[in-house]
């Protein structure tokens, strides 16, 4: 299967928010009301029940022009995902579609992923079990992995009427992105394709009209070394140590039992 990615051409977005509603509709997410901020933007950023948000950025360009910049903000599905590295329960993993998904059964709601996410798109949702006890689960965009498995496109892409959101073969999309970039360069000299290589690229690639920082995106994100060390070295080692310790304990118990056994029965052949 060829690699597929989601492509967001922000210069085609007209801010209609159909992607936001389509996401809620498909994923059965409840409303998440926030106080009016004075902007047309509905939510400050994505949250546990709002997996994508259109940000409305009022931007003054260097030559004094006003640009109203929209961006479909959601999980970028990093190839090297900080949330996956941070998760102590191995609840976060990559699917064959490149999407980063959280296994709700394994998630214990510790929130390490939310704290470490490069793009601040993971949040904990609070639920109540049948006894009224509160528990938390990390929530974010799944790239509609359940739809991808059935050969459908993500719900947000399906709804988009300006072809700002596209889900297609990676090579095709990236080539198209270059063409689009050359077309918008005249109006947006700072335009760029956002596919940060510090995290080995993302499964959602943006065509931005302005520098990433204008959109609140890190210019050159990286997964902190401490997390790589933690996940790729410390954690497996810890598990190995756990195994060794268990072996040693069980081994000693057995050895002790045998010793005791042989002591008790003096050869112990009476009932063999």
């Amino acid at each position, binding site marked *: 299967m060829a690699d597929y990615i989601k492509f967001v051409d922000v210069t085609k977005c007209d801010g*209609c*928010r*159909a992607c*936001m*509603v*389509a996401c809620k*509709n*498909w994923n*059965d997410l409840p409303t998440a009301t926030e106080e009016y901020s004075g902007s047309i933007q509905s939510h400050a950023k994505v949250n546990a029940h709002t997996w994508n948000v259109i940000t409305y950025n009022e931007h003054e360009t260097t030559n004094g022009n006003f640009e109203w910049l929209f961006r479909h903000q959601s999980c970028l599905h990093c190839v090297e995902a900080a949330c996956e590295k941070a998760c102590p329960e*191995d*609840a*976060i*993993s990559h*699917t064959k579609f490149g*999407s980063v*998904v959280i*296994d*709700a*059964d*394994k998630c214990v709601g510790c929130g390490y992923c939310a704290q470490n996410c490069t793009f601040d798109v993971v949040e904990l949702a609070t639920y109540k079990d049948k006894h009224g006890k509160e528990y938390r689960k990390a929530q974010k965009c*799944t790239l509609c*992995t*359940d739809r991808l*498995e*059935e050969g459908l496109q993500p*719900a947000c892409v*399906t*709804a*988009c*009427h300006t072809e700002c959101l596209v889900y297609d073969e990676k090579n095709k999309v990236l080539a198209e992105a270059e063409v689009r970039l050359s077309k918008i360069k005249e109006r947006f000299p700072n335009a760029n394709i956002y596919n940060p290589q510090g995290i080995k690229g993302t499964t959602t690639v943006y065509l931005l009209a302005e520098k990433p920082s204008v959109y609140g995106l890190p210019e050159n994100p990286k997964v902190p070394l401490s997390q790589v060390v933690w996940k790729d070295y410390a954690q*497996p080692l810890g*598990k*190995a140590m*756990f*195994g060794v310790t*268990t*072996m040693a304990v*069980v*081994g000693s*118990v*057995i050895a002790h*039992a*045998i*010793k005791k*056994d*042989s002591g008790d029965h003096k*050869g*112990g*052949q009476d009932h*063999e």
Partner: protein
Amino acid sequence: MEMNVTRRQFLKLSGAVAATLAIVELGFDDKTAKAKSGEFKIAKLKPTPTICPYCSVGCGILVYANENDVVYTEGDPDHPINEGTLCSKGTTVRQVYTSEKRITKPMYRAPGSSKWEEVDWEFAFDKVVKNIKETRDKSFIHQEGGVTVNRTDAIAYLGGAALDNEECHLNHKLFRAGLGLSYIEHQARI
């Protein structure tokens, strides 16, 4: 230490070692983490095509419903107008059915009253028919300046975007030719 391991002891020992290995194996297994997805929510549902009730564009919508509820709605990819896409308002169409605020019975507010009350359909239809008949009879103009006009200016009719072309045509016939209305409008033109 002399170890006289009997058959029984040997079996005990190998069992224990196997168990230990199993525990260690679980601890090491970080490759089984896999995307967990529940049942595909529209797997067994047949979509019903409909027209969006909001603006005049008239986008096609597919409605996925089970016996009790509307589960999902999305743009109809086969519809020539929207080709599968949908705006944010049209995407909320599921709530027309699922919303708690949905009115499921005819409501009546008597003249001069400040509150709505639930009535049955029979009452509602009778009331509408009676009022139209009375108003039309009272206000009907047969002739104006020697010209036969056969119209009433006391009733207006407002159509909506949920009506398709043929329904609009039929409504037009009923209200203009049938009842003699001249104030006929459509929500999409307002």
